């Protein structure tokens, strides 16, 4: 039998919703940190002139940008609500229903983002 070098245990165990909640929290935070410099630079256009900022704001009126903004609102909201869950887990008495809370957090953030989109399109 030919001996080949393989990676063992590549198939990893089933992830729970808590694992995904932590992943969503981490990814949302990471994307927000990457987005922030762009956000700050856009606002900094006001240093150039009001017209520059106005031009940028009107660019954001397009549906494609509004869709991205909905994504950003989701990221911010899910990071906020997920963060509240973590603070509660670490500082308040232990609860056994964290799987439910994690699901609720993601659902609530999705609703907020959807509401945002409906208001701005």
């Amino acid at each position, binding site marked *: 039998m030919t001996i080949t070098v393989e990676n*063992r245990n590549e198939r990893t165990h089933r992830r729970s919703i*808590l694992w995904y909640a932590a992943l969503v929290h981490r990814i949302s935070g990471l994307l927000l940190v990457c987005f922030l410099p762009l956000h700050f630079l856009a606002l900094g256009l006001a240093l150039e002139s009001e017209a520059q900022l106005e031009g940028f704001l009107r660019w954001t009126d397009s549906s494609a940008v509004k869709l991205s903004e909905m994504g950003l609102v989701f990221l911010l909201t899910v990071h906020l609500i997920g963060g509240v869950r*973590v603070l509660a887990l670490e500082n308040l008495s232990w609860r056994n229903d964290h799987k439910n809370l994690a699901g609720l957090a993601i659902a609530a953030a999705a609703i907020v983002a959807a509401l945002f989109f409906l208001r701005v399109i």
Partner: protein
Amino acid sequence: MQVSREHSATLDRTNTVNANVTKLEVRVWRGGEAGHYDTFSVPKRTNQTVLDVVTWIQRNLDPTLSYRFACRVGMCGSCGMTVNGAPRWTCRTHVSKVASDNLLEIGPLANLPVIKDLTADMSRFFEKWQQAEGTFVPTKTRKDPIAAIPPQDAARQNVDEAIECINCGVCFAACDVVRWNDDYLGPAALNRAWSLANDARDGGNTNRLRAISATGGCHACHSHQSCMQHCPKDLNPTRSIAGLKRLTMEAYLRGDLS
């Protein structure tokens, strides 16, 4: 041949082996860190644990297979292995529960160096136990009266909830932070630190809280609760670690930690 047929006939009452026996396809890790999977064909039985499968392979097909077990009844924690991707006690894992479509993949516990085949080197696990100051520091002598701690005492209940750990390493193997961060002490060591921190008789808590507040201490836990999900004794190290986060924060604000 005659002998073995008679032997299996006596097993027929409780552990049926049919003439057309279903076979399990079992992939088993061989080698050290670098290695490969060997595939074995093992008769499937009605009542069969993964440890039974490994033992059958070693006794009937390949005596060079290395694996570890002791009590085989779910008390010692020695038989931990990775079964179809999840860390489990093989003596308490029924094949019918994990081998849908009769496929099994067995490897050593994750996050630990491999000695050979299915045997992991537990040294790192126990070293982190020591680093977390996971040992009881006595404050009384045999001449002192026994400490009177009522069972309903809140701190004692915290101890009771965490104390049943038998150091099997399953939580350590399941934990992503252990995988991502070499310095992380891990769920078992921190769970033990919590049980000792709540023990009114123990005198080593200042050092212990300091030990678990360094890089790789309790604050590195991201509360995935994979440890809780896989612990065969239904312990919850995430809950213990959350408690340690509170204890260390309080100690820090009091100025007890340097």
